[in-house]
């Protein structure tokens, strides 16, 4: 595993996010065969000694197949899942060493956007109320004026103010995902963890959302951890990429370097399997 430090867009300051030898294990229930054979089953390491850093305003793509540990990693970063070892530091502060109000403040700085916006929005709340609530809970400046607060957020994600009075089910998939992003932005995060945030969307809407992520990075300076199983989607937005397999980061570096000269065989396999939209680039049948 080679970290491409010289090429990252770093200042001399501490990294926004530093992940150091993070480990998460899940105990496996023994199957019938193993129980009969009285076999011990080693715990499954979903995240296995993962280290990386992320700078301010940087977009880091995390790629990998299903079961590679991408999502578990994301959840460990904000302690939605408790890691078993290692450290996650935000501006040098270890989030595993804190609890209560301090943890809440750390979590405010890292917001998550999930794949299914329908599941992450309260169906009974209007969009305006949902956005305002997030701001109120974290006491954000400006949250005392609900209308202005909501309007600014909707503007950031390029939605009109009319959306504020709607319920989630009245919106299209793309609009709902914009609302999820707006809700993440409501608490002024420094890092957005986007876990397959565009995977369920149609390609035309997906392209809009990818542009939105790029706009937000530019306008707000927010860093984005962009998790996707689609390498091409990562190619569209990420400055750097980390490829995961079996819970480990097997390769990392600037996106163009990794894509042009993949070193690890898993990265090579992923790239070779990419279905190119140009029929002349068919994967040769082996």
């Amino acid at each position: 595993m080679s970290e491409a430090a010289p090429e990252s867009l770093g200042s001399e300051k501490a990294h926004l996010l530093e992940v150091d030898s993070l480990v998460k294990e899940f105990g496996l229930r023994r199957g019938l065969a193993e129980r009969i054979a009285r076999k011990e089953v080693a715990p499954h390491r979903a995240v296995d000694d993962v280290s990386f850093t992320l700078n301010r305003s940087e977009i880091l793509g995390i790629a990998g197949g299903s079961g590679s540990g991408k999502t578990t990693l994301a959840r460990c970063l904000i302690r939605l899942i408790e890691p078993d070892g290692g450290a996650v530091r935000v501006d040098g502060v270890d989030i595993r060493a804190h609890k209560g109000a301090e943890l809440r403040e750390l979590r405010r700085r890292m917001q998550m956007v999930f794949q299914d916006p329908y599941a992450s929005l309260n169906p009974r709340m209007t969009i305006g109320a949902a956005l305002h609530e997030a701001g109120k809970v974290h006491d954000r400046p400006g949250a005392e004026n609900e209308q202005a607060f909501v309007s600014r957020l909707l503007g950031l994600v390029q939605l009109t103010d009319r959306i504020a009075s709607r319920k989630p089910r009245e919106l299209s998939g793309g609009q709902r995902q914009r609302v999820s992003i707006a809700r993440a932005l409501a608490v002024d995060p420094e890092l957005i963890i986007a876990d397959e945030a565009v995977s369920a969307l149609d390609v035309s809407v997906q392209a809009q959302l990818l542009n939105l992520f790029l706009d937000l990075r530019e306008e707000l300076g927010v860093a984005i951890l962009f998790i996707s199983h689609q390498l091409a989607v990562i190619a569209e937005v990420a400055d750097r990429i980390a490829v995961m397999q079996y819970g480990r980061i097997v390769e990392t570096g600037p996106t163009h370097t990794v894509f042009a000269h993949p070193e690890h065989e898993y990265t090579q396999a992923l790239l070779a399997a990419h279905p190119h939209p140009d029929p002349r680039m068919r994967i040769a049948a082996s």
Partner: protein
Amino acid sequence: MSSLLEIEALRIEFPGEEGPLVAVKGVDLALDEGEVVGLVGESGSGKSLTCRAVMRMVPEPGSISAGTVRFDGQDVMAMGRGQLRDFRAHSVGMIYQNPFGSLNPVLRVGAQIAETLRVNRGRSSKAAKAEAIALLDRVGIEDPERRYRAYPHELSGGMCQRVMIAISTASSPRLMLADEPTTALDVTTQAQILELLGTMRAEEGMAMLLVSHDFGVIAQACDRVAVMYGGHIVETGPVETIYHEPEHPYTRALLNSVPELDSAGNVKRRAALAGHPPELSEVIPGCVFAPRCEHVQPGCDQVPMKLMPVGPDHHSACPVRPFAGTGARTTGRGGAAADAERIEA
């Protein structure tokens, strides 16, 4: 010149509070023997429904309200129960996006393949088992004797999809309907399944209707492609022509939205299509794409959605033809050469 499958003026409706909601609005599509045709489009475009209509399996409460489906000259719409059952059992196979959902979770996969062979092909139990194991082997499942006894939950998604392919090809159908067969799978598994379908097609001469939202998948497998939008086919032609010289503004916009590996290290915004695909309840007069089209002209709300020839075996429903004579689509950035290098490397 009769085709293996001919769909004409297909119309599929769902009951709505204020009159029927029309999901498929007059689709014409033909497949020749051994041909692989892709149906590509975004959600709600009607591509899956069109595919299901071939077997008259439109989900309730939807129904085929008009149009004909002919398979090898036979009118599928006019078939009685027994005939339809025979047709579904012997002539067509179908695989879906979610292979777990298509397999019975409490039966061993081998038993499910053997059942198909017993019921559809009249095999004895013993012969069915031997043949099922041979089928598992053919779809690339290692150690088929052991996998024969596995339950679906013991297999990966890719393996379940292979089992589904084994079941649906058990009776050597002449047509395979594949509805997003690789969407739920990892990219490496996807490549394997596409390769397997390609092999089956080469060996069996089986025609295939492949439904996908992913033009990459379509490009990998298809000879011809039909692009659907808002319940209509807006463009159809050979897959190379559609990719390199799309005529319909929607096809162009769709292709320009497809994320590409070439973008790596050259992060810039794509000219994304504004808005979103039409909802079922939206009734758009004239061209269904007009509200999102950047080449829209005054008469566009009155033109009929009708495919017109624009080149050899190439049809488009756009009478404006804003790209006629402009030649190949410029494919964003990077260029194909760099990518070709990578694939060969």
